[in-house]
């Protein structure tokens, strides 16, 4: 019989589990994110059903006020994705700070004509400084199924058209006893129907008030998160500036044509985002002032 009682010196050294060669924890994170995305999109209807039922549940406890239900739903999503947003923000700041790093700027100049070498050097600097270049993208990616599912969720949950009402019946779980709630009250504040694009008559003109608020709050949020750049004329600063215009305009047109309930979501989400930045001390209020970017 073999003696299995080995002295400590004889015992094999416990190695921590090793990843295969070429695999890093970052690769694992990427694979996990892809897996979550694949899982979400291959179970698309289930995801929508879950979100629709959460929305109906909130509607019930929010006193049958759909606008309030959307706001509470947005807060819930913000709370759930808070750690992801925080990580995304951290990654963004790290990436922005990198733009002002002396070594970073030096390699940009040195390898301006050798893209391959430049990429290698950039990766080396990232490694040395412990920055994950995907750090701001992965948390954003993992939230996309929720963003994508929001449009059908709000459209179906409001049930403003015959087909969306029928879909609501299809997605609602039996225990919700949704027939007792129908039709959902889809008016909110001055809006008659959150399932339709909003227009308000101002001095005889049909003004998309909600879409304008979406544009403004998106602009404010984007500006607040823009870190000051050492050189406002560098490419990154320029593209960031462009982003501050581009996103609000895009979301404005988006809100112009989709259910106003979605615009309520965007506005709430923007306001909460601003609050989150402010609470974390990241909000750059100077950016809102003309010339506020200049240091």
């Amino acid at each position, binding site marked *: 019989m073999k003696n299995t009682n080995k002295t400590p010196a004889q015992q094999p050294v416990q190695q921590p589990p090793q990843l295969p060669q070429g695999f890093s924890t970052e690769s694992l994170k990427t694979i996990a994110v892809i897996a979550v995305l694949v899982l979400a999109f291959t179970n698309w209807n289930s995801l929508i059903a879950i979100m629709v039922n959460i929305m109906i549940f909130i509607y019930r406890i929010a006193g049958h006020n759909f606008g309030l239900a959307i706001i509470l739903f947005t807060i819930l999503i913000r709370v759930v994705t808070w750690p992801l947003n925080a990580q995304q923000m951290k990654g963004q700041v790290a990436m922005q700070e990198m733009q002002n790093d002396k070594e970073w700027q030096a390699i940009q100049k040195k390898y301006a004509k050798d893209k391959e070498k430049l990429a290698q050097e*950039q990766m080396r600097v990232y490694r040395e400084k412990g920055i994950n*270049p995907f750090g701001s993208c992965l948390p954003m990616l993992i939230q996309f199924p929720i963003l994508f599912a929001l449009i059908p969720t709000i459209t179906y949950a409001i049930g403003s058209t015959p087909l969306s009402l029928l879909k609501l019946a299809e997605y609602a779980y039996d225990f919700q006893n949704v027939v007792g709630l129908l039709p959902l009250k889809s008016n909110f504040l001055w809006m008659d129907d959150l399932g339709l694009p909003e227009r308000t008559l101002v001095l005889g003109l049909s003004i998309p008030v909600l879409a304008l608020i979406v544009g403004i709050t998106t602009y404010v949020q984007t500006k607040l998160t823009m870190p000051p750049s050492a050189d406002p004329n560098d490419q990154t600063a320029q593209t960031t500036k462009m982003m501050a215009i581009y996103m609000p305009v895009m979301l404005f047109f988006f809100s112009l044509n989709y259910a106003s309930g979605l615009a309520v979501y965007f506005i709430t989400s923007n306001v909460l985002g601003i609050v989150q930045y402010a609470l974390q001390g990241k909000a750059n209020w100077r950016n809102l002032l003309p010339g506020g970017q200049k240091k």
Partner: protein
Amino acid sequence: MIFSMRKKILLVTVILLAAVLLSGCVGSTTWPGLSADGDTAYLANGLSVYAINLSDGEEIWHYPLQSNSKLAFNSNPVLAPNGLVIVGSSGVDHSLFAINPEKFPDGPVESVGGVQKFLCSIGLATCPEHHVEEWIFTDSEGHWVASPLVVSDKVFAPNADGNLYILDLHTGDLLKKLTLDGDSKTPNRLWSQPVSDGQHVFVTSLDLQVFGVDAETYEYWRQDLTGAIPGSGVIGSDGMLYVGSLAKQLEKFDPVTGKHEPVLDTKGWIWGTPVVNGDNLYFSDVDGNFYSYNIKSGKLNWESVKLEAGPITASPLVYADGALVVAESGNVYFVDGTGSDDVWHAAPEKGKAYTTPVSAGGYVLVSYIESDYYLIALDEDGDQKWIFPAGK
């Protein structure tokens, strides 16, 4: 690979576009409206209303002549005795249009692009103008889901804003705006075409109410149900009004007093309007069941038939020897007088059907969404004769 800001912008753009496309999973937000007379079918399908020649499926005209993204047509066009085609828009521009088919120009109409349209609107260019409307009613506050009903020279038009607009058929002038708001502070959603027994006009509401409006005095009674009513009522052979609701009940109403009682419990929500034939009512539910109810006996003629798992929102087409039923899947079933069913026309490869089919010109017309075509004409054997549009 480095995620530069430019790439991030590209990524966000792609994602937002994908969100829009995926919201295409929302796809159509509702289904087309369909009606027909002796030789023409009228299809209200999104941005346009089409008049289609029943003999060959060719387009005769479409409305509006110039595309307008503010309009959306989805309710059944109503054919008035004076030849007008009346249809409301559920788009941002929620007007009710009385189209005069005789006013359409011969030959194709020059298309006016966005920039030119803008220049025309500010008087810096001249655009060809064709007014094919007899009148346009623009005073509703909500969109039009319901088709109007023409009684004598009046148009009874229920709107999603909770008002029943009563208009002059010939001029479109507002005769009366009747707010059917019940006790609720929010407007009643009136989604279905009214029905009339000649003296009263009966209006159902999604907000669980049924109204009986005197066609002359406009006085009305109101009754509450326990479920939303997306379909219309129907006048039975006994002169009573029958209404199905999402409370899984068929109810009978006295047309004068509004006094009502449930007459049948169903397995699923009743969505489509029941169809009357003699002493029998035929209707379906959203669980895919089909019913034949005898008014005299107060009982089902036979146990309901489970046609398929998906919902049936369309009203059936009733014949002497049975009924044709269109299910969401696109299958068209024939159910005979004993309750025995068979697939009469198999569903297309892709597409869903919610619209009530129409029988005209010797064809059965079935409308689809999310399909390669909007409309199909089937002959008496259930074989396809033409599709519209042919080259879609």
